[in-house]
């Protein structure tokens, strides 16, 4: 494997909280050294004016394989991931059929190896068929390579099943990721509030999310299983997590770019690219989510990359499916939402997108220490560009951020010591 020397960049290593002008050498697929005068290498990349960071990690994506391969596959998902600077992504099990057994976990791992782009790590279903009734074979899936467990798309509604799931996962010290939505309070198509009242669109109240978080935190108080709240969206949820953390519970949370940048006002035009679950909330909720990021209540950033066919998204608002794609524009959007206004620093941002994400799923990644795997992303912090989802490597186009002017971009993505993508050349070894 050819060695790579990244010269003259600014190195951010959140695992050791340092930021310095230095070179980085990758040899035999691993980080060999960070420093100066590191000698020569087979490939030399000049990163002057650029940031060199651990490969970005997104623990919440949907790659639609098996079942909806026309929307996304593990291969196309991995391609769009590296084009966004992500070296590791964790894919949710709400496929058809669900990733609820060893065989399905094996399928994702094999498909990821075939694609040979990003690390794609499967998340197993908590319950068989994601039906919320019986526990899936969590232990066997873990042994086969599942990285965490979730019924994402829905929450585990039954309290007794959820309690068993927390107890059972505690045995393996794995993490449960919950899509928090109490179904008896839900069933709407957008946030229940003033805008939905005016539009006559059925709403999803903030309490649907908060009720499940509150219940799970209560259940987990005596169990102590690692519990992660997916795509947090309401001010009340942030407060519940803040209290749970204050009480010392093993609770973490993530937030998606759209919940930091958009509000339910966007739904006024009935554009289904603004339909996601959890829905876009109010400006007060956006503010609370940003405050949650600032004070550490929200641990990490995750895209909830959710591809859908154009035909599906061109439906009436209430009938269209939830979700938007986000891997290729996530980094600059987080920067716009959090770094540019001065809420957090670049170092804090990189930590949330690398080391802290790795921590939640217990991955030995998110660091640039010598000897660790050579997953590295180079970011141009001053690259101005206009988001255009038509150019994404994803198979889908459902993204409301097309046309947004943003100020930075991943320019080179290195996975396992190999350049998989660069802005100039696209996917390595593949003609564009």
């Amino acid at each position, binding site marked *: 494997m050819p060695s790579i020397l990244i010269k003259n960049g600014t190195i951010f290593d959140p695992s050791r909280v340092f930021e310095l002008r230095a070179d980085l050498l990758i040899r035999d697929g691993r980080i060999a050294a960070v420093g100066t005068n590191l000698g020569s290498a087979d490939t030399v990349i000049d990163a002057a004016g650029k940031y060199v960071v651990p490969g970005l990690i997104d623990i919440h994506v949907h790659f639609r394989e098996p079942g909806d391969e026309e929307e996304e596959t593990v291969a196309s998902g991995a391609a769009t991931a590296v084009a966004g600077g992500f070296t590791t992504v964790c894919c949710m099990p709400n496929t058809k059929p669900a990733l609820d057994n060893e065989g399905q976990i094996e399928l994702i791992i094999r498909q990821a190896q075939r694609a040979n782009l990003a690390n794609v790590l499967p998340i197993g279903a908590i319950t068989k068929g994601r039906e919320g009734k019986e526990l899936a074979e969590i232990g066997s899936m873990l042994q086969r390579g599942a990285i965490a467990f979730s019924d994402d798309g829905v929450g585990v509604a039954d309290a007794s099943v959820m309690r068993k799931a927390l107890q059972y996962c505690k045995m393996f010290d794995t993490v449960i990721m919950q899509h928090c939505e109490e179904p008896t309070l839900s069933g709407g198509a957008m946030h229940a*509030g003033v805008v939905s*009242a005016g539009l*006559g*669109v059925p709403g999803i109240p903030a309490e649907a999310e908060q009720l499940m978080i509150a219940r799970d935190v209560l259940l987990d108080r005596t169990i102590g299983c690692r519990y992660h709240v997916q795509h947090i969206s309401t001010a009340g949820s942030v407060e519940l997590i803040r209290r749970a953390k204050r009480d010392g519970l093993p609770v973490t949370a993530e937030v998606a770019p759209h919940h930091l940048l958009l509000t339910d006002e966007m739904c006024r035009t009935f554009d289904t690219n603004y339909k996601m679950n959890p829905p876009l909330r109010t400006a007060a909720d956006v503010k609370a989510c940003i405050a949650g990021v600032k004070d550490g209540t929200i641990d990490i950033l995750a895209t909830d990359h959710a591809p859908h066919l154009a*035909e599906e998204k*061109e*439906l*009436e608002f209430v009938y269209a499916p939830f979700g938007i794609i986000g891997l290729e524009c996530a980094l600059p959007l987080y920067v716009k939402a959090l770094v540019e206004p001065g809420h957090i620093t670049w170092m804090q941002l990189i930590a949330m997108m690398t080391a802290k994400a790795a921590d939640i799923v217990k991955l030995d990644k998110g660091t640039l220490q010598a000897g660790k795997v050579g997953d590295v992303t180079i970011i141009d912090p001053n690259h101005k560009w206009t988001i255009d989802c038509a150019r994404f490597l994803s198979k889908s186009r459902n993204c409301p951020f097309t046309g947004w002017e943003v100020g930075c971009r991943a320019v080179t993505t290195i996975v396992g010591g190999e350049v998989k993508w660069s802005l100039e050349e696209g996917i390595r070894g593949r003609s564009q």
Partner: protein
Amino acid sequence: MTDTAAPRWTRKHLLTLEELSAEEILFILDTAASFKEVSTRSIKKVPALRGRVMVNAFFEDSTRTRTSFTLAASRLSADILDFSEKGSSVSKGETLIDTARNIEAMGVDIIVIRHPAAGAATLLSRTVKCSVVNAGDGAHEHPTQGLLDLYTIRERFGKIAGLKVAIVGDIANSRVARSNLWGLTKLGAEVILVGPTTLVPRAFEKFGAKVVHDLDSVIGTVDVINMLRVQFERIKSSQFPSVREFTRFFGLTQERFQRCKENVFIMHPGPMNRGIEISSGIADGPQSGILQQVTNGLSVRMAVLYLVTQVGA
């Protein structure tokens, strides 16, 4: 605006009353007034839309709205096509957009759409080149109903500004309530929304309405009472416990009617549940404008069909 030659109507579609200005609403009402005269002639027809095609695309049951649009178009000498499909496009396998493009490919000038999903007319207007008229989209809006209610109120009182109008019933799920609310407030009326807390969310106060849960507290103060139809399926979803209890608290009974202003005007978009939200004696009595609403619906729809087709592509 200083340019007096500026066109008073520039919209190709009629989708909501929310997006219209007071001036635009008044312009439709004035146009409707001039069309009302047509219905008094012995030959009730003008050639305004001769050679034009209007299609009624109804994805939901409707008798009066569809009939009214049909008659309005025929009085304007348009050709009329009827298309109905019950249930959503999803269940049929063809999307709304595909259905609409197919209809449009036959060369129509106006699609009048009634659909169970909020925003369906808006979606359509972004897709097709012809005019789109919203004949009711889910719980969102029913602009021609709103306009005909405004017309009827103006006809009765000679004005709208300064009137107090109560809209009573299932506000949360009513497109009629929303269109009335936008139209009335834009024209300076005071709107009071009345109904149980489960069906009249406080959020409506943000739109300039007063929200009241005690009909008796306002009944003697209002100039107009617009009673909405009770939807029995709301009982199943626990939005009120029974018809009997609804009538007891929110029905327009004879007893309540006695306490109304002397010249109170009673309206209902139909179809009525007699004896439930409105007692028969009131619906058929001299204070009732219910049949005038239907008559005026025709003129208003003629005006709308005429105006949207006068705007170039």
